[in-house]
């Protein structure tokens, strides 16, 4: 009879499935960063002067900053002069329709299962795909435009809707916010933009698919979503990258603006290449995600993080308006040598603001998983409420789970609750399942999925199924 250890070993050797490289000619700027590079990026993108100035302001500020050292992660020093800050699939002319997109690129997305072609219209998901640094295709644009919804690449928005960009860019994550966000502000090359007008309920899930392809390329995308008064939008984000021995840098910024009574639901399934079992390669994922809620608005972040060598992100909500609601549901999984320092910040400024945080950390192999959360209730935020639940699950005895909750309450009418638990998938649980005829892998999957249930039920249906499968694959063979 094979031991569990043996079965698990075999399963653990499952390869990263999305690790292929697409051979496409790229138009890249030289490695390194200086004012000329920043100007060159802006020029390539044919940006108006205010954008160039904004980037330069960010770049100059970045020079005065140092890398944050407080996260509970370890990695060799990054040489920021050794990164290519702009790489785009070479396009011979302006793309008019999907037919003109390089077929090689379309095949890549097909492999990834992104429904880029309009024939997959039944999927009901509008997709903006970002390949390396530029957005290559946005589907369903016309249909969305009928309702006044703008969903396009960031570059296009800069050209077509400069007034919205200048009004909202940096309004939630200012250019000076933090080391990586400031770097992003200087060099971001593309991303997605979405505006949902007053009172409109966006009829379909909007989705962005990010892919880092070129070697030594950093991906610095920027997403800006604005839900005008009373609007609703649900947004999905998925990510993959080829397997490379070098670490690749990903420093994105996502800004969400929910005006009075608006609702934004932002879901992420992040599956960047995590590196191999010895910790070689993988994506450094240093991301700043933040949303701002005006009166009675609501922002929900739901994330399933299974990839990246290092994850450093804290999707946050500024509860500016009275009666606004912020939510954060997260599953973060670390296996092999992966490290994650993730959590959220809920800043209660308005009265009667509410926030809910449900964080599920799963550590396997030698993975290190840290939850870091800040609940800040300001003086005028009377009757604010927060509920935080933070659970960790350990598989094996070489991994770690850490929790750093920070709670600041500055008035007496508010209430913050924090619950935390750490558990191990026990031999008893596994034996119980096996005694009922359930195989080891199915038992582990079942226990993990049970553990993550509260988060999965927040995900849109098709995403939830994908997330469950992804967890299964990422965890195979981690019990022993």
């Amino acid at each position: 009879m094979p031991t569990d250890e043996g079965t698990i070993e075999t399963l653990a050797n499952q390869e990263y499935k999305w690790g292929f490289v697409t051979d496409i000619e790229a138009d890249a700027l030289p490695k390194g960063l200086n004012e000329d590079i920043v100007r060159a990026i802006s020029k390539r993108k044919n940006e108006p002067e205010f954008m160039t100035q904004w980037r330069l302001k960010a770049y100059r500020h970045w020079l005065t900053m140092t890398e944050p050292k407080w996260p509970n992660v370890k990695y060799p020093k990054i040489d920021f002069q050794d990164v290519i800050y702009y790489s785009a699939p070479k396009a011979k002319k302006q793309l008019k329709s999907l037919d003109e997109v390089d077929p090689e690129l379309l095949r890549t997305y097909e492999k990834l299962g992104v429904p880029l072609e309009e024939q997959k219209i039944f999927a009901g998901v509008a997709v903006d795909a970002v390949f390396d640094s530029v957005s290559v295709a946005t589907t369903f644009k016309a249909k969305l435009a009928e309702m006044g919804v703008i969903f396009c690449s960031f570059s296009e928005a800069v050209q077509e809707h400069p007034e919205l960009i200048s009004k909202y860019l940096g309004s939630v994550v200012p250019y000076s916010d933090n080391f990586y966000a400031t770097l992003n502000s200087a060099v971001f090359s593309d991303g997605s933009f979405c505006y949902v007008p007053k009172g409109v309920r966006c009829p379909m899930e909007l989705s962005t698919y990010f892919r880092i392809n070129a070697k030594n390329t950093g991906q610095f995308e920027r997403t800006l979503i604005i839900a005008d008064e009373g609007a609703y939008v649900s947004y999905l984000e998925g990510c993959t990258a080829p397997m490379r021995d070098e670490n690749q840098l990903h420093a994105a910024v996502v800004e969400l603006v929910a005006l009075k009574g608006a609702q934004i639901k932002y879901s992420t399934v992040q599956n960047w290449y995590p590196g191999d079992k010895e910790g070689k390669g993988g994506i450094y994922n240093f991301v700043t995600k933040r949303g701002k809620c005006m009166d009675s608005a609501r922002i929900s972040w739901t994330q399933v993080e299974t990839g990246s060598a290092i994850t450093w992100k804290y999707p946050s909500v500024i509860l500016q308006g009275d009666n606004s609601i912020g939510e954060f549901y997260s599953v973060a999984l670390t296996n092999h040598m992966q490290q994650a320092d993730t959590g959220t910040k809920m800043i209660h400024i308005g009265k009667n603001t509410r926030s809910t945080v449900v964080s599920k950390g799963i550590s396997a192999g030698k993975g290190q998983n840290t939850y870091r959360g800040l609940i800040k209730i300001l003086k005028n935020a009377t009757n604010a409420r927060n509920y935080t639940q933070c659970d960790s699950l350990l598989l094996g005895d070489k991994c770690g789970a850490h929790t750093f909750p920070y709670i600041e309450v500055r008035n007496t009418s508010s209430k913050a609750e924090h619950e935390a638990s750490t558990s191990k998938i026990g031999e008893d649980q596994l034996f119980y399942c096996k005694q009922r005829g359930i195989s080891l892998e199915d038992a582990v999957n079942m226990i993990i999925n049970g553990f993550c249930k509260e988060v999965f039920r927040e995900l849109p249906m098709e995403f939830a199924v994908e997330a469950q499968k992804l967890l299964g694959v990422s965890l195979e063979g981690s019990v022993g």
Partner: protein
Amino acid sequence: MALVEIKNLEAAVGGKPILKGIDLTINPGEVHAIMGPNGSGKSTLSSVLAGRETYTVTGGSVLFDGKDLLDLSPEERACEGLFMAFQYPVEIPGVTTSYFLKAAVNAIRKHHGQDELDAMDFLKMVKEKMALLEMDKTFLNRSVNEGFSGGEKKRNEIFQMAVLNPKFAILDETDSGLDIDALKIVANGVNALRSPERAILVVTHYQRLLDYIVPDFVHVLCDGRIVKSGGKELALELEKRGYAWLETAAA
């Protein structure tokens, strides 16, 4: 043919011998009770038969329905029709009882080359069995054993036995932690599951359970060996005299 044939079975945990040569033959339709003082090896015997990895079999053989039981993994044993009602059923948060049981039913069906049951058929089958154990409807949607009382947990075990329909069921100290009402419900459930095709091994410290589940044979385990076997009247004698007279005999 005997359903279960245990021959000179020896087992150890952490290098310490616990079972020191067990011989036991169980035929289909029979109910056997294993009794014995604490530390005699009763639970070890159940665990070894179910295939728990913490125990090492150091000698002997077990034939189950003609197959070498010790050569099968725990899940294969389950699929072949061996069921154990746990003394301490574990909790699995977030996994509903119906999801768990459906996974178990379908794993076993798959093993026998049968089609998986769909949700409707499964629910229909399960509802019939729930009536048997007087279980509440909400029970299926609760997480496996989470927040269950001791009685509910044990009822859940017998309910699972009813659903999985095993050839051979081991009830490991099923009476522990039960009040008399819960004990009766559990025993009624077990009795309803007695059949000419099924064998049941009741492992218990007290005679009390055997008032309700009346065994065909009673065996007394002392220090890793069966020191006395007899009919149901042996249990009553043990109730009166205790185990001490047999322990001296064993030594």
